[in-house]
């Protein structure tokens, strides 16, 4: 535990000294915040409140990018080799990177909530406990996804390509940019297979419908399952050295991380509850007990 805490503290210090981190984890999320708040929501508190889910999702989902790049850079530059000489387990490297991510991302999330309150006069953020639990789960799950990407790619270039593909899928098909309810029907159906969709949806339900964690059961369970699966797989595929060979079935393992969402996607495509609730949330602020889908 001491090793994990020491490693996390050092990672935080190193990351805060990195200008790219400040840009991607503070300036860019805030730019998105003000773009959404002032342009899309035109400064109206109710509209800003509706967009806070997507805004926080952007901040949280971006963590996978930084984590994967750092791990691949450290592996390429031989930094991980130096760590490997010391009595450190791969799991300590993984857990410390996710732990550091909590402390690096949470201040931006809090800042965005405070700005929404004081700049755009948003009066309620719904169930804040649910919001923070979802944010923590999101940081873990998307961070672990970044570690899986870093484990199955060999070079920075390869990592960048995979990250770009994942990022565009996550932000454009999930409701994080264009609300899920207005996306074409086919895109909505594909979006139901993405973890990001459930994350954005969960945050919006928590903020707009004061949803308690137990009413967000499906979202919470799927994010927990995904986080645990991705963290486990990243620890199995962790490579200290660039030339270390990946097991033959490594990419299959990586693909296995999407399993909870494949099942969930099939289920949600079948019952249509999430899409109905998303459409209802876009029309007006519902209460926790009155989303139309819950009445069925």
């Amino acid at each position: 535990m001491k090793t994990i805490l020491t490693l996390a503290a050092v990672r935080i210090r190193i990351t805060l000294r990195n200008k790219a981190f400040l840009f991607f984890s503070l300036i860019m999320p805030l730019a998105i915040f003000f773009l959404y708040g002032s342009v899309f929501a035109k400064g109206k508190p109710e509209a800003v409140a509706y967009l806070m889910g997507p805004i926080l999702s952007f901040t949280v989902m971006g963590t996978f990018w930084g984590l994967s790049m750092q791990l691949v850079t450290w592996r390429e530059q031989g930094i991980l080799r130096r760590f490997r000489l010391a009595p450190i387990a791969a799991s300590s490297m993984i857990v410390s990177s996710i732990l550091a991510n909590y402390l690096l991302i949470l201040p931006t999330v809090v800042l965005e909530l405070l700005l929404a309150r004081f700049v755009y006069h948003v009066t309620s953020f719904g169930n804040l406990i649910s919001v923070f639990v979802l944010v923590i789960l999101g940081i873990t799950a998307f961070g672990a996804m970044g570690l899986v990407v870093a484990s199955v790619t060999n070079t920075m270039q390869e990592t960048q390509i995979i990250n770009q593909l994942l990022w565009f899928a996550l932000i454009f098909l999930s409701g994080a940019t264009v609300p899920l309810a207005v996306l074409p029907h086919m895109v909505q159906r594909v979006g139901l297979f993405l973890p990001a969709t459930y994350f954005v949806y969960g945050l919006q339900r928590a903020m707009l419908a004061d949803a308690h964690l137990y009413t967000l059961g499906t979202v919470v369970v799927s994010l927990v399952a995904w986080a645990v699966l991705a963290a486990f797989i990243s620890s199995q595929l962790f490579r200290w050295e660039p030339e270390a060979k990946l097991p033959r079935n490594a990419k299959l393992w990586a693909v296995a991380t999407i399993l909870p969402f494949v099942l969930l996607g099939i289920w949600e495509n079948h019952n249509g509850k999430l899409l109905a609730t998303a459409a209802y949330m876009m029309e007006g602020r519902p209460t926790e007990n009155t989303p139309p889908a819950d009445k069925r």
Partner: protein
Amino acid sequence: MANPVLQVENLVKRYGDVEAVRGVSFSVDEGEVFGLLGPNGAGKTSTIEVLEGLRVADGGRATVCGLDPQRNPNELKNEIGAVLQATSLPDKLRVSEAIRLFASFYRRTRNPNELLRRFGLEEKRHSFYNQLSGGQKQRLALAMALVNDPKVLFLDEPTAGLDPQVRREIYVIIEELKREKKTIVLTTHYIEEAEKLCDRVAIIDLGKVIASGTPRELKQRSGDTTRLEVRLAKPAATEALKQLEGVADALEVDGAYVLHCQRTAPAIVSLVKYLEAQGNELVSLEIATPSLEDVFIELTGRRLRD
């Protein structure tokens, strides 16, 4: 009698179809500085990395401080220190943070401040890693390798790529460690380094130990001879050169001729006479006492730096 702290028997390491280490055996006694000398690609780094627990051997046995690097990796890592050939630290990590961080990983530690002082890094303690010169980075690597007060220290090409002045600085540090009776395993392709620092040397080529002993013992293989290295305007027959007065042996290496002479002056006179008779000319001539390079040339017909 000294105890072996490191034993290697018939070690084999393969990368795909390439057999990088082909049955290497040696042992290192406590307090000894042992060198693995050989050209690039000889299998030195693969051997040392198996001993450090970074690579898995494909055959043979190895124990370090009585521990099997594969079976007891964490126990082993607490007992050894190492300077790797290709390694780095995060750019924005400060010198003092790096040494404290690594000190925190071990059960037994030395005072990080004392190590920074000893390695002349006190003034650089607040510098980021990417602000250090090559020599400072290497001194930091050495300081970090000692942070757990290791029983065995592995130094993989510790002076490769460093300028001569920095190299001498590193030699001074290693000589100090040697005086402290630290057990050190050193790989190098620099003859000077092996001769200057090592108590015993194993010459390794194409994955095999081709000779081992103290530097003095190894050089005695060349007999009590002087080495003449000559370059000629035209090629000459080595057989004819071997027949010259005072010459014990002659070899052609990279277009030059290396003559081992029992009596130097008659050998030079007879060489000049022979060249005159052949219509050949002497382009250059160097006289040296035999070095480990000569042992390597004798054994392989190639230079170490090839």
